[in-house]
């Protein structure tokens, strides 16, 4: 029987082949987002996929024979061609589309791309949102990528006020967030209320919640890829105004004359600018102390040979400028922001392989100044420069991917005031990584095996090498419409954020692994079943287990004479299951995500009064046991689009105080304690905590509705939109305040968003 099992795939492998289709436009530049369908003799669709940024589609595991290939894209005429696929070989086909007035909706391409992912990806659990989809997820003011991905299974948000998210038991700093392949360290404005990504500039947001292959490194919980949209063709303007900000994005094709002599066949660029305006509008009436600005640049260029160059730039600044008031007289200037720049070159080999080279730099800085007290220096910074190379090539029946990367990182955090240095840490480190992964598709199987090696060389500390094997298998059933899958892997991470996740708003302050902080190693296994019912409905159930060794938390009892005990070193784990059901085609597309999670963290308990401290295991703030997202997106008549989201989450953990006591300040001058002089001076009281995170807030639920209507004008489109968050005004608990010093003692609290209507307007021409 074992022999049969071994022989069967070999026989199957011998009967199938592959085809690579490359689609270009009339100028021979690669065309992305083209629906490419492989048709059998009878005209039935055997496979379909959307072309990637290089205009490429690959179908593997196709029984040998003659097939028709049909390529369609909005704004272009449909083209059909034929191809013969031979067993054990990869055929190549080039198709050129011509511009035409009619085409097909983008939603069809999205559905094809998702179907292709199901058919061609063994391990990764990926969810994606296009610009169109994320704009239909109701949000505060304007569409927000990081808010929108919360509707995906396995993703938990802990607060209406923070767009930070947790994936499958991982901490928020364990999500790798990439803008066109370049990491972004603090992708939030206003302490997390919304993200830095201007939705008009986003083509696609893709979240890998688990099982990601060896090419991905650097974080252990998830990878969120945000791809910029070059827009076009021609000159385009997207502008909008919302409750949060005003924005404009201008795109333009580079004139042919400018390209002569550069080796480029075509090029296009886009620039967006966004700024909040409340400080300007309200300025005549009262000081509104906060504003943000961000600027994003994106360019793409293609060579005659099909090479693609992508340039990305982002810079953003938040400024909180408190002038001083009677109740808080201190003048404060607090600024923070990201700077990202990157370039990616991608080209294809004749035999169907690809080569991609990427270089970039990312920086996050924050600093607080007190203009009246210049002895104060609060600042934090992290830098990352990277160069990486990725290649794929067919090798017989397999596709081999390999690559290497070199990253240089550094951080510097300092807190000093009044001559006292409370924190001063910083060091550089280098990361060298290489990987190889192999993908095979014998008969009804998809097999992926790879290994990644990360060598971390922190300055002033011992080097670390982490080998990360990753294996995934998928077995197709029921004629390829259903599949069971398994993925096992090890992941490593060499950075940590010190942001206190218990706070609803906050800024990430980063440290690198080294003498002060360990690196994180996470072993993960996930297994599930997924499949399609008909062409439209996709469903998946997946269970997972993850360990996290080397997580950190701020040490509230650190020794100032020990520079290496600022952080507690701990462990964590997460296990659970995610269910996902969605309709991928049609005018009404519902989506249901149900996530069940158990997460724990284990650290020294410095609040128990024991020396040395004992270990404590508790549920972290993001341990939402059950999270349900029901989303309906509908394209209604008269260009009206409707988005509905209902979110239910079981209560998040919190630590209940057992009691409060008067806090008596000690005076060295007096040699004793000072008696409090005011009856209700909360600064003069302290609380005694009960077991950590042993209590739960009430369940969270909220209904959001968004409505967009597009008016088509001769010059372009006008789209007013209205979002209403928390339609039935549920008082979801943000905090409880236990007021034991009141008579009788009470529990007060703050809720998250009440019913919150917002509106905006978009213009496109």
């Amino acid at each position, binding site marked *: 029987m074992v022999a049969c099992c071994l022989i069967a795939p070999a026989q199957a492998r011998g009967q199938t082949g592959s085809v690579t289709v490359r689609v270009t436009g009339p100028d021979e530049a690669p065309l992305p987002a083209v629906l490419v369908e492989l048709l059998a003799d009878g005209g039935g669709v055997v496979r379909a996929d959307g072309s990637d940024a290089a205009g490429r589609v690959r179908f593997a595991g196709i029984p040998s024979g003659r097939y028709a290939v049909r390529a369609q894209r909005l704004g272009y005429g449909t083209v059909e061609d034929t191809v013969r696929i031979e067993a054990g070989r990869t055929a190549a086909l080039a198709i050129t589309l011509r511009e035409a007035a009619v085409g097909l909706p983008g939603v069809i391409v999205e559905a094809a791309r998702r179907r292709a992912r199901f058919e061609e990806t063994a391990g990764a659990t990926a969810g994606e949102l296009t610009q169109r989809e994320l704009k239909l997820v109701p949000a505060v003011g304007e569409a927000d990528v990081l808010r929108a991905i919360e509707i995906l299974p396995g993703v938990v948000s802990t607060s209406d006020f923070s767009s930070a998210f947790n994936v499958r038991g991982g901490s928020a700093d364990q999500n790798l967030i990439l803008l066109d392949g370049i990491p972004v360290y603090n992708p939030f404005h206003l302490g997390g209320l919304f993200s830095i990504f201007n939705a008009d500039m986003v083509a696609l947001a893709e979240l890998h919640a688990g099982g990601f292959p060896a090419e991905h490194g650097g974080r252990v919980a998830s990878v969120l890829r945000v791809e910029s949209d070059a827009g076009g063709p021609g000159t385009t303007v997207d502008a909008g105004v919302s409750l949060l900000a005003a924005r404009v994005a201008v795109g333009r094709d580079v004139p042919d004359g400018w390209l002569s002599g550069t080796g480029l066949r075509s090029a296009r660029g886009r620039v967006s600018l966004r700024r909040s305006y409340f400080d300007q509008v309200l300025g005549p009436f009262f000081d509104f102390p906060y504003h943000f600005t961000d600027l994003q640049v994106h360019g793409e260029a293609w060579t005659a040979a099909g090479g693609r160059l992508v340039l990305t730039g982002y810079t953003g600044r938040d400024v909180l400028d408190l002038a001083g008031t009677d109740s808080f007289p201190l003048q404060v200037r607090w600024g923070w922001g990201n700077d990202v720049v990157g370039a990616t070159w991608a080209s294809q080999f004749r035999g169907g392989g690809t080569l991609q080279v990427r270089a970039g730099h990312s920086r996050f800085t924050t600093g607080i100044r007190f203009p009246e007290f210049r002895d104060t220096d609060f600042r934090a910074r992290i830098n990352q420069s990277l160069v990486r190379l990725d290649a794929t090539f067919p090798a017989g029946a397999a596709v081999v991917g390999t690559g290497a990367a070199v990253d240089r990182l550094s951080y510097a955090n300092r807190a000093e005031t*009044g001559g006292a240095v409370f924190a001063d840490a910083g060091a550089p480190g280098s990361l060298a990584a290489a990987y190889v992964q192999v993908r095979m598709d014998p008969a009804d199987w998809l097999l992926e095996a790879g290994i990644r090696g990360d060598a971390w060389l922190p300055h002033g500390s011992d080097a670390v090498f982490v080998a990360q094997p990753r294996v995934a298998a998928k077995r197709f059933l029921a004629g390829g419409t259903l599949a069971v899958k398994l993925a096992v892997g090890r992941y490593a991470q060499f950075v940590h954020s010190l942001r206190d996740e218990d706070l609803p708003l906050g800024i990430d302050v980063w440290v690198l692994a080294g003498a002060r902080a360990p690196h994180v190693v996470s072993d993960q296994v996930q297994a599930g079943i997924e499949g399609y019912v008909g062409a439209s409905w996709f469903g998946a159930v997946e269970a997972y287990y993850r360990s996290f060794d080397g997580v950190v938390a701020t040490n509230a009892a650190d020794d100032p004479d020990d520079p290496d005990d600022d952080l507690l070193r701990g462990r964590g784990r997460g296990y659970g299951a995610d269910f996902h059901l969605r309709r991928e085609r049609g005018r009404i597309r519902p989506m249901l995500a149900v996530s069940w999670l158990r997460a724990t963290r284990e650290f020294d308990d410095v609040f128990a009064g024991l020396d040395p401290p004992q270990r404590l295991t508790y549920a972290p703030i993001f341990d939402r046991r059950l999270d349900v997202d029901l989303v309906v997106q509908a394209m209604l008549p008269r260009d009206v689009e409707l988005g509905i989201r209902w979110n239910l989450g079981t209560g998040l953990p919190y630590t209940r105080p057992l009691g409060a006591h008067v806090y008596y300040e000690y005076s060295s001058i007096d040699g004793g304690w000072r008696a409090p002089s005011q009856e209700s001076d909360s600064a003069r009281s302290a609380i005694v905590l009960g077991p950590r995170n042993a209590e739960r807030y009430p369940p969270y639920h909220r209904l959001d509705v968004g409505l967009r209507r597009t008016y088509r004008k001769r010059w372009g489109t006008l789209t007013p939109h209205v979002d209403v968050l928390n339609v039935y005004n549920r008082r979801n608990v943000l905090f409880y305040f236990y007021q*034991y010093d009141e008579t009788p003692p009470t529990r007060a609290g703050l809720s998250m968003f009440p019913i*919150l209507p917002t509106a905006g307007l978009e213009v496109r021409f």
Partner: protein
Amino acid sequence: MPGRIVVRIALLAAMTALGPTACELSDITLAEPADLLVVEVVLKAGDTIQTAFLHRTVSAAGGARIFDATVTVREDGGGPPMSFEADADSLCLFPAPPTPPFPAGTCYVARGRTALVRPGIRYTLEVALPDGRRLTGSTQVPGEFALVRPAAPCRLPAGTGMDLAWTRAAGASVYIGETRMDHLVAALRAAGVEIERADTPVDLLGLAIGSADTTMAFPGEFGLFDRADPELHAILLAIRPGLPPGVRADIAIAAADRNYVNWVRGGAFNPSGTVRVPSLHGDGTGVIGSLVIRRTAIDTGDADLPSCP
């Protein structure tokens, strides 16, 4: 600590963002909170009177005072135990006992040669109540140190500052500088500074972190935690270059152990209030800390004092 200032700024920022959107929840009346014992002991090296302050978590009943506790401190390595007896509140609390609804505590005092605390020695506290409740913990007293500048009270020209300096105390977690300035408000008013505060003594704190940081600028680095205080903000700005004429500043520099620092600086975030990091374990919470204190004075008016170095 500066974390407090940053947190306050962060909360202000948060309220800017959340103010229009967050809503208060209805108050719910709670049952009486747990009755927990709170013990605060700060051993002072070189003193032959040591105090322990015992109180309870707050409650509607106010909490009964604790007169029947057994409070004992033992020096590691032997020696007779230091026994504490309930005594007058005025030996623990300054300037007066708290007024209701703050619950009164009980001052326990140890006197005599057995109460002498020596620098560099570890001491262990045990508190036992007749109902069986018990709290224990220990402190390592910082090592001996001496003031270098000024070693004795001195006269400083008005409008100028100076760096205080001292020798290193082994095992000190921080050095807490404390000053009490008499007639400062009146002197500032006389100098034309508008101050909305009665002319009562002004107490300010400064900090040097780690055993190796043995300097502190006077008066500029004092008042570190009061810069956002509406009453003190203008005073701190006015005295940054130096004190006005006619002011006497009593100064204490205290080398503090880790327990003391952990208790006063506050720990994890909790929306209900400040969380102290205790050094006592058992049926309650509290601190056993230790200080080595050195005192001096700076005067901008007393011509009889020698000039400050």
